[in-house]
């Protein structure tokens, strides 16, 4: 290696400040990342750094001056430079790539303009991250649709529009509501996983809704119009004469919204005796003559 004083261009009597200034002046000119295409600059920068390492350390400088050590071996092994990652395709898709220096060349119509446009389009387009959330909604909101406000961990909030008929585990994607991109890319999306809380008496199967509806003995025997809950409010349901427990009545179109219409609500009847013992009913049944001829268990008894 050459004489470090010569490399830095300072006199033997140079003060530490002179050395520092000389090093800075050369480093600014020769730093490989400021001269990405200049191999010579890189080699010279290595010499300059080595010279500076030697002369900026009073101990080493004194030893060198007295001839105890020479300038060899003082080179500092250097990690790779940034340019090694940014050029020659290695920087493609990097968040640092910047097309501001040539984007205007893409305005024309020729093949090169097309090339510039394509390159410009690739740069700084790293999207922000998608953020994942969970939202538990009520059964009726899932069936009818709703807008729910989701409170975010950072204190912000997000209005989530729930489409009618959403299913358990479905994920809603809210465009651009995720993390902002660093650089100039699009923000990410918010992904909201929906869970549906069960309902007290509605149960969903596909697009149909099932409900078990208690009716009185007289409603079952004589038939009646009874008020029946549906997700959109109560309706009057006609229970035919002689309806038994387990009979299923269909309310058309009262189920969950689906493409081109709605599912149905299926009402399963359950005949309920009076909750208190009823003397009148007991008296009546004891005189009911046909009761003894009816055996609902006849299929079970061998």
């Amino acid at each position, binding site marked *: 290696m050459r004489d470090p004083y010569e490399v830095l261009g300072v006199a033997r009597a140079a003060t530490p400040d002179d050395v520092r200034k000389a090093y*800075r002046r050369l480093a600014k000119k020769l*730093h490989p*990342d400021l001269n990405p295409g200049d191999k010579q600059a890189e080699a010279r920068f290595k010499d300059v750094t080595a010279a500076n390492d030697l002369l900026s350390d009073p101990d080493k400088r004194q030893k060198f001056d007295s001839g105890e050590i020479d300038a060899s071996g003082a080179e500092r092994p250097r990690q790779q430079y940034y340019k090694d990652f940014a050029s020659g395709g290695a920087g493609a898709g990097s968040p640092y790539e910047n097309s501001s220096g*040539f984007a205007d060349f893409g305005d024309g119509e020729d093949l090169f303009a097309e090339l510039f446009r394509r390159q410009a389009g690739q740069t700084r387009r790293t999207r922000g991250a998608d953020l994942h959330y969970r939202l538990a909604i009520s059964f009726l909101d899932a069936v009818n649709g709703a807008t729910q406000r989701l409170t975010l961990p950072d204190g912000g909030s997000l209005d989530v529009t729930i489409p009618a008929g959403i299913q358990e585990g479905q994920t809603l994607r809210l465009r651009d509501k995720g993390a902002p991109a660093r650089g100039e890319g699009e923000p990410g999306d918010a992904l909201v996983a929906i869970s549906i809380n069960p309902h007290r008496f509605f149960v969903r199967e596909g697009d149909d809704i099932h409900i078990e509806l208690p009716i009185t003995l007289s409603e079952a025997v004589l038939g009646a119009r009874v008020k029946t809950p549906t997700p959109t409010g109560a309706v009057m349901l006609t229970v035919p004469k002689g309806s038994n427990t387990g009979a299923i009545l269909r309310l058309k179109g009262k189920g969950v919204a689906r493409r081109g219409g709605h599912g149905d609500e299926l009402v399963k009847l359950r005949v309920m005796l009076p909750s208190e013992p009823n003397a009148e009913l007991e008296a009546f049944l004891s005189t009911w003559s046909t009761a003894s001829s009816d055996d609902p268990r006849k299929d079970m008894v061998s």
Partner: protein
Amino acid sequence: MIFTTVDFLARARVDRETLEIWIEEEWLVPSETTPERAFTEADLARAQLIRDLMDDLGVNAEGVGVVLNLVDQVHGLRNVLAEVLTSARERR
């Protein structure tokens, strides 16, 4: 190679607070993956460049942003020029 924040701090020899400022200034743009940021070797080399600029070349904080922006433009230009040259040679 991908580094975690702790790894990156040790290798780049910066403290956490400084790193946050660099990220805030968009001098460094690690990918914001969960649960932790991920740094690439390019991020590491860039951190080394920032340190060179500030420690060795006497560039102040305002200057670093300007330098990095221009360095990024130079690389953008170098890459597009390389692309243009390749395409021109293929056409010949």
